[in-house]
């Protein structure tokens, strides 16, 4: 468990958070710019001094009560920022060796170089690298210093969409292949949906919600704006590929007793774990199972909650059993439809899902 209790007075807000992050997987701090997520990360790294306590398992990095503050260079962390901050006077190899030597020099740089595909770049100077390459070197440099904890502050924010999609696979690989806890700061919801295990929503220096990403994203009771634009609302589903229908180009993915058909994409094979995203605006509901519909994904659901939001209503739909951790869907419908159907919490409905995206 990573514990961080931090308080910091800033001109625009007061930061006051108590974070409990799992010691594996990607924990994402998400929120609008100026909500304090970068301040949290800097305080975790010891770059800024907030009041409070920071502990990683049994290793304590800051404890004001015990007058303990470990300086940044004695914390076994990796830190990657938006503009990479590579050392311009060193080659790529020199940049990687910088942290490796200072951390005891036993990290296998070759493995890191392979992981991030830097083989051909080792003798280059940072000035000759593209934005995407620079960011990969920055990530590799952080990994070569053998961190116990990787902190990433909007590592993709300075990149255009093409460069982003060049880096994201490497981040997913990092996530899959290393047992390294990552704290990731972003204001891009698509990065959250793709990478996150544990989600912390921040607003004006405070934690608005925190928990497993599927649980937090399926909540309807969050203050408006905390999750970005309203039409971005949607859930993520961790599933497994059960079947490949090559004739129609479809995959059947299963999760928690339910199944969905999705368009095949990438080189996904049967048995593989995948993550899918279903946006609330792509889900509609019916009282009876629709007959002869073009929508191929229709699931029986239980209406758990209704959240009125202007002229629309956001529905939280439980799939299958009534377990607390069961998968859920969100559906955004018009208030008119809601009234016409006379929807109430507890109703048994059928959800029609028009769009499922594999991440």
């Amino acid at each position, binding site marked *: 468990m990573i514990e961080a209790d931090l308080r910091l007075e800033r001109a625009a807000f007061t930061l006051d958070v108590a974070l409990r992050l799992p010691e594996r997987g990607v924990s994402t701090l998400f929120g609008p710019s100026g909500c304090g997520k970068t301040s949290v990360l800097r305080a975790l*790294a010891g*770059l800024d001094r907030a009041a409070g306590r920071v502990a990683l398992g049994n290793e304590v990095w800051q404890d004001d009560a015990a007058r303990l503050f470990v*300086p*940044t*260079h*004695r*914390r076994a*962390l*990796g*830190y990657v*920022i938006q*503009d990479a*901050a*590579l*050392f*311009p*006077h060193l080659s790529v190899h020199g940049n990687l060796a*910088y*942290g490796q030597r*200072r*951390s005891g020099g036993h990290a296998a740089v070759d493995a890191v170089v392979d992981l991030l595909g830097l083989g051909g770049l080792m*003798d*280059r*100077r940072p*000035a*000759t690298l593209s934005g995407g390459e620079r960011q990969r070197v920055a990530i590799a*440099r*952080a990994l070569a*210093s053998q961190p116990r904890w990787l902190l990433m502050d909007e590592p993709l924010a300075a990149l255009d969409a093409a460069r982003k999609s060049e880096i994201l696979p490497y981040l997913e690989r990092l996530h899959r292949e290393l047992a390294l806890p990552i704290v990731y700061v972003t204001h891009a919801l698509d990065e959250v949906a793709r990478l996150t295990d544990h989600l912390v929503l921040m607003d004006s220096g405070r934690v608005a919600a925190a928990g497993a990403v599927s649980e937090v994203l399926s909540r309807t009771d969050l203050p408006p704006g905390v999750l970005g634009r309203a039409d971005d609302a949607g859930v993520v589903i961790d599933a497994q590929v059960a079947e490949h229908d090559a004739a129609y180009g479809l995959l059947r993915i299963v999760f928690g007793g339910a199944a969905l058909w999705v368009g095949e994409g990438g080189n996904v094979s049967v048995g593989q774990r995948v993550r899918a995203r279903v946006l609330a605006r792509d889900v509609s509901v019916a009282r009876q199972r629709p007959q002869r519909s073009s929508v191929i994904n229709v699931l029986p659901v239980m209406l758990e909650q209704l959240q009125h939001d202007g002229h629309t209503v956001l529905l939280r739909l439980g799939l299958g059993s009534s377990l607390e951790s069961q998968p859920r869907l969100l559906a955004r419908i018009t208030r008119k439809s809601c009234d016409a159907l006379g929807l109430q919490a507890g109703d048994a409905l059928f959800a029609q899902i028009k769009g499922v995206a594999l991440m």
Partner: protein
Amino acid sequence: MTADDWVAIRLTAELAALSTLLLLLLGTPLAWRLARSRSALRPLWLALVAMPIVLPPTVLGFYLLVLLGPQGPVGQMMQALGLGRLPFTFGGLVVASVLYSLPFVVQPLQQAFEAIPEAMMEAAATLRAGALDRFFSIALPLARPGLLTASVLGFAHTVGEFGVVLMMGGNIPGRTRVLSVAIYDHVESAEFADAHRLSAVLVLFALAVLVAMYVLNREPHGARR
């Protein structure tokens, strides 16, 4: 050129080299502090460092003489400690030169340090480099152009000084008689050919070092592949 002229050239080179060395040793930490200071007194420190640029050298030389002279507080202290006297000695010239050329060394260094993004130093800290390590492995290499400019300006400015030298060192051949004073002497004695030769040496020297500096400072971290 006369034998005296050669002595003056050698003395000037020695004075400039020693002063530059001392200036780099003292000026680098000073510039680093000034570049990172957020103290309310920072403008005062900046002004004090810049003073020799605006003060007439004779004023600086005069106060140094008052301070370091046999009746001056520093002079008396030095005599009490058995360190001898500074005015009209080579040592006095070095002290005067260091003060006089201080801004020409500190300012380029300070600007070079200020140009280093804070993110670069923080990145080094997250890669386990302590403060001193960060300074030597990141700040100094990145400030290389500023270091070079500071050395060249410090050296050249010391070679070219006159007023402070005359006040502090006088005109003792082989001990305090440097190039600029030698030229002045030649002109005073109407030895224009000798004055010409020495002046030409200085003009060529100044041109050469400045060109060398601009060539070396081109493309600090060259976009070489």
